């Protein structure tokens, strides 16, 4: 388990740098396995406390049990939960049938943009991992976004020896990625090691399927799996060669590069 403690030490260091340098800090929490491990690591870094708000960009299309889980942990762990929503787009009837990239842009990217504008956060902590897909593999731990939320991947700042980019011009913000070096298997190994509560949507509940990655109900599909414990998930992942986000529709083609350039998580 030494490799998990090494990953934990680095993530905790990143959390503490973020907390030191950003006055107006928030952390995205989608209730999925990654951002819940992220939340756990925040409690590690701050000795049981979470000294900044957790932001949930609610598309209104999430699986209902995700919202129940969110509200239960928020109560039990005394979290400061901030929920944002692109109400205008929803009122105009935005949904995935108008196009998956369009829907993600409106409800997630722009939903996040609206939340950032309203609250003026200068640092946002996210649970993206480099092994999820190839544009995330090129991220920095501290990654600047300009005033339009755009990511200039052609000209990223140097990142040397844990000296991160912590100063930035007005009206821009920094995305902070403490989980960048973690793999999907590491996430489950750590959930097991620390006994972190997670949603049972990730387990086979008798019908021979489970969710490997969670998003909005219409665009996230379960995979065939018999894994009904964390150990079985780890075993399954070690044997598989299917990409983690195979069940996520917006990843098709160049979807992610285009989405992420414009400020998607």
């Amino acid at each position, binding site marked *: 388990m030494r490799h998990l403690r090494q990953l934990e030490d680095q993530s905790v260091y990143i959390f503490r740098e973020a907390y030191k340098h950003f006055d107006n800090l928030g952390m995205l929490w989608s209730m999925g396995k990654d951002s819940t491990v992220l939340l756990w690591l925040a*409690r590690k870094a701050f*000795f049981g406390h979470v000294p900044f708000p957790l932001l949930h960009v609610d598309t209104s299309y999430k699986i209902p049990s995700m919202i129940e889980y969110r509200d239960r942990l928020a109560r039990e762990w005394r979290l400061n939960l901030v929920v944002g929503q692109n109400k205008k787009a929803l009122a105009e009837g935005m949904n995935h049938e108008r196009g998956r990239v369009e829907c993600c842009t409106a409800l997630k990217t722009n939903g996040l943009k609206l939340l950032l504008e309203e609250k003026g956060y200068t640092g946002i902590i996210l649970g993206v991992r480099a092994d999820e897909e190839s544009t995330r*593999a090129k991220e920095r731990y501290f990654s600047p976004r300009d005033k339009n939320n755009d990511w200039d991947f052609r000209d990223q700042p*140097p990142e*040397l*020896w844990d000296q991160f980019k912590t100063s930035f011009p007005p009206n821009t913000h920094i995305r902070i990625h403490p989980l960048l070096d973690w793999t999907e298997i590491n996430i489950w190994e750590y959930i097991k090691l*620390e006994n972190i509560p997670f949603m049972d949507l990730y387990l086979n509940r008798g019908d021979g399927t489970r969710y490997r990655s969670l998003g909005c109900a219409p665009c996230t599909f379960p995979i065939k799996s018999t894994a009904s414990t964390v150990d079985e998930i780890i075993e399954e992942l070690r044997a598989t060669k299917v990409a983690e986000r195979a069940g996520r529709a917006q990843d098709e083609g160049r979807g992610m590069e285009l989405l992420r350039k414009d400020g998607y998580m």
Partner: protein
Amino acid sequence: MATCKTDTTLDVRDRMNIVIVGSVDHGKSTLLGRLYADTGTLPEGKVEKIQAICKQQGKEFEYAFLFDAFLEEQQQGVTIDTARTFFQWAGRQYIIIDAPGHKEFLKNMVSGAARAEAALLLIDALEGVRDQSKRHGLLLSMLGVRQVTVVVNKMDLVDYRQETFALIEKEYRAFLSQLDVTPQFVIPASAKRGDNIATPSPHMPWHTGPTVLESLAQFSSESEKAEQPLRFPLQDVYKFDARRILTGRITSGRLKVGDQVIFSPSNKSAVVQTLEAFNVDPPPTQTQAGQSVGITLDDQIFVERGEILSHEGSLPLVSTTFRANLFWLGRRPLDMEKPYLVRLATHEVECRVAEIHRIVDADNLSLDQQQTSAVVKRNEVADVTIQAKAPLAFDLYADFETTGRFVLVDDYDVSGGGIITEMVADREETLRIEARQRDFAWVKGDVTLADRAKHYGHRAALVLLIGPDTTGKTFLAKKVESMLVAEGRHVYMLDPENLRRGLDADLQEEDARETIRRYGEVARLLIDTGVLLISTTNSFTPSTWLRTGPSTGLRAGLPADQVVEAIRTLVHPAPVLTVYMSQETTPSSFDGAPFDFAPPRYAQDRPIEADLSFTGPEDFTRTAHDVLAALKQKGILAETIGNQPVFQFSI
């Protein structure tokens, strides 16, 4: 064609970051793609997907396309930014970092290599050793990547000739030896054809060493850092609940409950009472290099982010000045006229480049070819002297990796990095050593500075009034003293002249530095009692006007900035508020009381940088209020007294 190897070890014992570097087009991305393909570690359908895209775009499939994510990267066939790729083999989890080779993206190569513990350095067999091969070798050694395996790629293009390989190996080994780097292996390979990548090449039976895949297992992830003396840069101080927790990452050595630790550069000390951790039962009692930790102390001392904790037997160096090898990545050249921020571990302080000794040419590392310059341009490496505005604790890079290196920040951007080669003793070196030794030996009572601060409603501190003679410094000092006493604060005005006939009776006019040293020690003593001390500095600086009377001569003294620095060093780390007073016109009176001597003539005195500046104030009550406001703003005075004031123990 290589066959596919498969890994049957599922348990992960450790992890390691490896970077692939080398000149553009020498085949780094191809090697990476090949390594994954030949070990069966690519996701299902990945090769087929890229092959289909290639076919659609009418170009030949290349393994390099597997990891070049951005459209532009694939279109131009050039890696723009480093990619982290994940690879597991024989019980070790690797992150393999594909660094761009193009000169334009050197900052990205450096970012990738700075995360790595070991490197694969590629050289094209057909092109041989290029400038960029050498530059990357030099940067690896500066970035602390000591484990290097050299891969001579594209051997298929030279008909797998051993002589070609041997020439390149000889040339590059000779180059690396100048950097004190010995490659672990030099491997002839063809990434495109799969020779010596995952399986031994039938075309090069003369190669008896390992394949690239086998060589990975030879990199050691065992760190000797835990065996070195303790270095623990303080990251932050938390008070979320009853515990006051000091946090940071131990960069070398070990720390356990009960250890006495020294903070540098403040020279404070305390004993570690507990190690704090969340969801760890029972709590840990010892910790070591690499770990992010939290500790509580037996004594609530004022300490700030940036200090380095160590044991007393092995202290870090402390100075404002050091010499370093620096690589510059900034858009604008490094300029001696411009201020930068130096960030060393968790310490951040303004600095200037005091000297650029030479530009280091990767092509010619020998010292006899000196190349001097007034600036350091982008992507150049230089030997420089850095001078910081305040003393900082550090080590030589040869002794300690993490506390021996730093970055420079220009505006908003990390723009360069360096490794410290030498400590440069600055003017305050002697006084600093004196202060350090005196502080370690200081016998303390049970009442801490924090207790006193709480009791008096302010932190112990020094207000220094600087400036030419007859600008009203003493008058202001008296005013500030009276106002603070009226508020119930513990404050004392010490005129340095008061030491002249007593403590300094044995000194002559020319003993200026000794006069200052004695004053500094008296000030240090008073500050330790918790007092807020106010002093003028005229006794230490040269006379700035000539009295008409015959009884007084001219003081020689020292320039004001040197006086302030010396005093600061001796009372360190107590906060010092500097107030500069000057005059535009000759005063005829002070606050209504006329002078009883002739109007003075002023000598030239350079104004110094101060926290507050006043030019010819007329309303001294208002000026005194400004001083009080500055003391509050600096966190020295609590807002209200007696009402359990809360002090910022750390920035």
